[in-house]
């Protein structure tokens, strides 16, 4: 199982699409590692600099419908090769969400109300998240405070994460 703890990158916008996460011009690469420098290169988000703001971050916290658009698994791969294994959002596009779990990564949904609180209390400060998957809890922490936030996740999705992805799981079962 991968590591799901670390520093948070806040992306305060809904409908961030996979073209913004990794533009199509990099889909000609035949290795995942080659995607590393281009993560979020085309995102329209004021004040965000993809060259400096991703370094050291392991978790993304964002808004609704993250990963909409193209089916490209290059989007989760670009996250993974940058050390980001967990995305927390109000909701995800179906294919992106499935791609995350298929890679053994996690896409966790929290309610708008809870996310509003997290953005209000933590965005703009150095924030650390610890994901306790067995207990279905996320621990948010900055210098000021700590919050324990419960989440729900399907048993099947946890199985994919434990197996390290869908290929391993399917190979064992079908």
């Amino acid at each position, binding site marked *: 199982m991968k590591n799901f703890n670390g520093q948070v990158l806040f992306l305060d916008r809904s*409908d961030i*699409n996979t*073209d*913004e996460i990794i*533009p*199509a*011009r990099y*889909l*000609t*690469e*035949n*290795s*995942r590692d080659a995607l590393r420098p281009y993560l979020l290169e*085309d*995102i*329209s988000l004021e004040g965000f600099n993809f060259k400096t703001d991703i370094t050291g971050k392991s978790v993304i916290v964002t808004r*609704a*419908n993250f990963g*909409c*658009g*193209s*089916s*490209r*698994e290059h989007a*989760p791969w670009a996250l993974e090769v940058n050390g980001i294994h967990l995305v927390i959002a109000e*909701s995800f*596009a*179906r*294919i992106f969400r*499935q*791609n995350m779990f*298929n*890679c053994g990564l996690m896409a966790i949904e929290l309610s708008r109300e809870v996310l509003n609180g997290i953005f209000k209390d933590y965005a703009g400060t150095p924030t650390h998240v610890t994901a306790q998957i067995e207990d279905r809890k996320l621990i948010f922490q900055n210098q000021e405070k700590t919050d324990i936030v419960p989440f729900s996740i*399907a*048993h*099947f999705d946890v199985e994919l994460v434990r197996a390290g*992805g*869908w*290929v391993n799981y*399917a*190979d064992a079962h*079908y």
Partner: protein
Amino acid sequence: MGKTVAEKIFDTHRVGAPLDDVHIIRLDAVFCHEITTPIAINDLIARGKDRVFDASKIKVVIDHVSPAKDSKTALQGKILRSWARRHNIQDFFDIGRNGICHALFPEKGFVRPGYTIIMGDSHTCTHGAFGAFAAGVGTTDLEVGILKGVCAFHYPHSIKIQITGQLPAGVYAKDVILSVIGRIGVDGATHKVIEFSGPVVEAMSMESRMTLCNMAVEAGATCGICYPDMTTVRYLWKHIQHEYSSPDQALAAFSVYLPDKDAVYDAILEHDVSGLEPQATFGFKPDQVKSAKELLGTPVDQVYIGSCTNGRLEDLRIAAGILKGRKISESIRGVVSPATSSIFRQAIEEGIIQTFMDAGFCVTNPTCGACLGMSNGVMAEGEVCASTTNRNFNGRMGKGAMVHLMSPATAAYTAIAGYITPSFHKP
């Protein structure tokens, strides 16, 4: 309790008992192209599992960047080509015989009502126009599909959208789907299947139904589905005539995949198109839709007619009908890409290509190319494209460029004028 189309298809394809909300379904076809498949192939090789579950159910095309534009895209083609040969995949379509997957595979008769289909391409939902469950997936789902012939999906909740009223002249399937997405939003159907029904859909050609279903994913839908009818049967007839004694018999067989009268939907929407005007997008999301006349006069640098949304013969005929005997504006770069080789050939025979060239269009070969900013018409920063494609995302057709989505008719009028110009009822 009655069942929806997707529920009926899942019932006949389910493998084992559902795992909570997750259903593993058997696949009737796995479609592959050169952008998302090579990494799956390389991964299968690395795992020592370079096998395919059934070579006759795998259909392969090189379409996204065709011909290859550089060494990297040439390598993607090479990996796909040698894999198809190695596994004796008969239905492999290379340059000269190829076309955009979502136009080519229906044309080849690879889609049937009731089929389950996956592809590493989000616009796979297009094939639902035939009453199939067809879903875009990522490379890992594709990899498992190739190896095992199965895929996992959450329970297929459905929305029914009844398209009613009378479609005005000059208003097309593209305008209908843009107006639907504008109404329900880019995540209005996430995790759901959309059944498109009603008299307007029943009157549509298969080409128009494919345009409708193609953009279902722009509202987040897993698949867009139209009900199989005699239009479906006629489109497929040359591919299925050996399997059925008559079109009526084929229709009867396909009708098992019609929804029950008491099927349960998450929502049923009525969408009356009687007063609908030509639509166009603004901004960077496909749900940012307006009547094109509100954008009248917006300067445009390039007009692009093509793609899996609107590069079929019906689309080219409509645009050529408008362009006939006219010239596009001096300020416009016009690019048209027939979606498949046979559409291209037919367009030549009908004089459509001549019309485009006389009007001042550049005619390019079938490829996805410009739609995703890969080749054959990429835009420069600050430029504007009026496009018959399906995505207006920031940077989609070129970094820093703006895309306005619209119908082929509105695109043709725009090319002539040099700025966004809706196709009016009586041009």
